[in-house]
């Protein structure tokens, strides 16, 4: 081959998606085998999905591929040639980049500054006029649209995700690995981001490898799929040729029905719905920056119903939940529980049976360094039968707390099953289970829940949804705030859409029009 043709092919390859093959990759952490001879084939310019439950080894496999921990056995082929990927630098040289589940952006800096910092070879003095023109030209070459001068802290989650992807494209990556890219996005944002990436793979400019456990996304965007289970290859194939049920079976290892939006009929539940438990009237609240976030919201929840609050993140849901939980001061309006003015005092919570499962429970509902037993006792450690004793001086009865914790751990399947473990050492799903166990252990009359299955795997999600359903059937009034529309459609009796701090749309779940919900979520309803 003469040098000219050779350089032409090399230059040509730079603008095309990479083909990647993993061959019998094995990775051990001590005695634990995280990956056991896993092989995977990702074709050039394809959109490949990596499916599996939490702990199946998906993240380990891609971390081997980007050089974070090199495998013990096996290796990788990029564009048909074997490459030893020992460090992130090696991966960067092969133009393989990864977008992590958690944002790695500097919130106090602008979009342009974040992009420029990713480049790494900054000049001592930055000519912003020149750099901005170059960045704008780069943005034009991609399908993504972002304001270069916007502060990252002011971006919505979907825009942040776009910026993370842009950072990798800016580095000229030919293979983009995405670790559950849509876990923090609304369905609309997810479709937009994945659709744009899908378009780039159609041009052959990019190969995408996406870790996911959402079948909807896999079916809509994937070309090929590789499924892992417990560190082993459970199956692979083309997306069109595998049914969702087959993929689910490979993923969890047994034949389980995938809940496909069990939409309830409004008729079979009207008799169960009782009196108004939570009544919010004209509520106003400011966000952390002091700007109005909840702006005159009216909402009521009756006994025996789940009211689902849908909405794009940042439309006041977080502030609403914080006001209801007593974490934030309302600036105006009224919250009544069972007809009484409610300030979220401990006495009122007890009197009215108000419980909650806030988002990020480790931060919002736990004392991380305390044990599981102590955390499970936070609601009632100071009343009989857990306090009192000698001369009624209010001594803790640790044994009673521990005994009750053991029972709850058993009933809710918290792992590890030792009540003395510090709760911060539990996995996300188990923290969620432990907090839910605490919140559902008393007579629940009103339950406020926010994003209860965020980042949880299939089994944990099912377990928590079952518990919520059960609490509702026992007559609790439940307010469920979630960014996952599928979850809301599955669980709610009534769905409301929150947009710009008010309820913009309301419908019984059985009659809800998903297209209308989407329009109102996007703020185009009126």
């Amino acid at each position, binding site marked *: 081959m003469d040098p000219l043709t050779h350089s032409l092919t090399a230059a040509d390859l730079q603008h095309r998606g990479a083909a990647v093959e993993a061959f019998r990759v094995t990775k051990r952490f001590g005695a634990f085998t995280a990956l056991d001879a896993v092989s995977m084939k990702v074709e050039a310019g394809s959109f490949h999905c990596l499916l599996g439950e939490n702990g199946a080894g998906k993240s380990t496999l891609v971390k081997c591929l980007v050089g974070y921990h090199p495998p013990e056995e096996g290796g990788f082929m990029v564009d048909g040639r074997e490459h030893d990927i020992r460090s992130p630098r090696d991966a960067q040289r092969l133009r393989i980049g990864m977008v992590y589940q958690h944002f790695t952006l*500097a919130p*106090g800096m602008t979009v342009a500054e974040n992009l420029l910092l990713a480049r790494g070879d900054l000049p001592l003095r930055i*000519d912003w006029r020149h750099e901005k023109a170059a960045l704008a030209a780069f943005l034009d070459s991609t399908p993504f649209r972002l304001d270069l001068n916007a502060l990252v802290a002011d971006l919505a989650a979907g825009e942040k995700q776009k910026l993370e992807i842009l950072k990798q494209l800016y580095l000229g990556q030919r293979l983009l690995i995405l670790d559950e890219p849509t876990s923090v996005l609304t369905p609309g944002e997810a479709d937009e981001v994945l659709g744009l990436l899908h378009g780039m793979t159609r041009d052959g400019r990019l190969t995408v490898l996406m870790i996911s456990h959402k079948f909807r996304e896999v079916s809509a965007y994937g070309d090929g799929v590789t499924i892992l289970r417990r560190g082993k290859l459970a199956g692979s194939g083309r997306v069109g040729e595998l049914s969702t049920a087959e993929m689910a079976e490979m993923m969890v290892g047994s034949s389980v029905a995938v809940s496909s939006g069990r939409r309830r009929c409004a008729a079979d539940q009207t008799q169960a719905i009782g009196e108004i438990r939570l009544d919010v009237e004209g509520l106003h609240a400011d966000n952390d920056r002091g700007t109005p976030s909840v702006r005159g919201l009216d909402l009521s929840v009756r006994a025996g119903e789940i009211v689902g609050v849908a909405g794009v993140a940042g439309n006041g849901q977080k502030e609403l939940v914080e006001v209801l939980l007593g974490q934030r001061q309302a600036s105006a309006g009224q919250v009544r529980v069972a007809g009484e003015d409610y300030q979220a005092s401990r006495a009122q919570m007890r009197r009215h049976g108000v419980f909650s499962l806030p988002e990020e429970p480790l931060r919002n509902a736990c004392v991380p360094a305390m044990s599981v037993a102590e955390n499970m006792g936070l609601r009632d450690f100071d009343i009989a039968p857990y306090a009192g004793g000698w001369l009624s001086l209010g001594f803790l009865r640790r044994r009673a707390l521990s005994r009750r914790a053991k029972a709850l751990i058993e009933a809710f399947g918290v792992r590890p099953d030792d009540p003395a473990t510090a709760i911060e050492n539990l996995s996300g799903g188990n923290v969620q289970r432990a907090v839910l166990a605490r919140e559902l252990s008393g007579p629940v009359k009103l339950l406020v829940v926010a994003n209860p299955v965020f980042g949880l795997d299939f089994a944990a999600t099912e377990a928590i949804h079952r518990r919520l359903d059960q609490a509702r059937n026992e007559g609790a009034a439940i307010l469920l705030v979630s960014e996952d529309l599928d979850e809301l459609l599955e669980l709610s009796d009534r769905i409301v859409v929150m947009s710009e701090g008010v309820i913009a749309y309301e419908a019984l779940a059985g009659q809800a029009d998903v297209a209308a919900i989407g329009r109102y979520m996007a703020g185009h309803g009126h």
Partner: protein
Amino acid sequence: MSDGGDSLAFGSLALALLGGALRVSTPFLFVSLGECITEKSGRINLGLEGILVLGAMSGYGVSLASGSPWLGVLAAGLCGLVMGLLHGGLCSLAKVNDIAVGISLMLFGTGLAFFLGKPLIQPQAPMLPSLELGAWSDSAQLQSALRINVLLPLGLLLALLLHWGFRASRWGLALRLVGDNAAAARALGYPVVAIRIGATAAGGFLAGVGGAFLSLYYPGSWNEGLSSGQGLMAVALVIFARWNPLRCALAALLFGAAGALGPALQSQGITAGYYLFNAAPYVLTLALMAASWMPGRSLAGAPGELSLTQR
């Protein structure tokens, strides 16, 4: 008393305040710019009070020994640099808290300065020169108000330079990234620990220079009550200025004016409550902190890694 007399008195009080502000603000300016650099990197150095005092002592001593006040300023800066390196290094160890290290450095710095500075209380060292910006005027009062020290324009220039550099230099961007999201900086290959140590050392250098001003220009002698908490107030000032060097300069002038309130009133013949008016900077600190810390709000513009802004 006539109206004319009133406005004359008010005018000369304003002049006295302006002069005081220009005179007293310099250490605030240097310490707050130093602290601004350090905090932009995601750490707080409360030890700047100790560095200020140590800088005052070492600057005075070197000026006395060498006969050159500029060598004194340099020595004070280098002393601060070493203290900054000490703070930066200690905080880089695992599980070491920057606030606690800062408080111990504050006590260490002042203690060391008092110990080594005993023989410096009596002799008179050569002072820093001043610029006569008011030479065009006949008014003695205006001349005295506009007699500024050489360090003040240098400090204002530095504020401009920092304001530009934070935005448009490689070092500025890297510094802000490290202070805003250390994990992201690490992922992009920026040396987080080295940048923080460097930023703390630079902050220490500037605080040391601020100290040299105290002993070599105004009040212009070495004694143990020299600083009276200016290093600590500068930390509050940075928060008030929302980590912006230009606003740091304005805030330093404001604090300077507050500090000059007591002497200015005294020069007008108002001696009642002299000590009360001298407390004005402390009252201002409290009021500003209360005003900038509204409950339920986070501080806009705060570096994300700063321990005091993290919930």
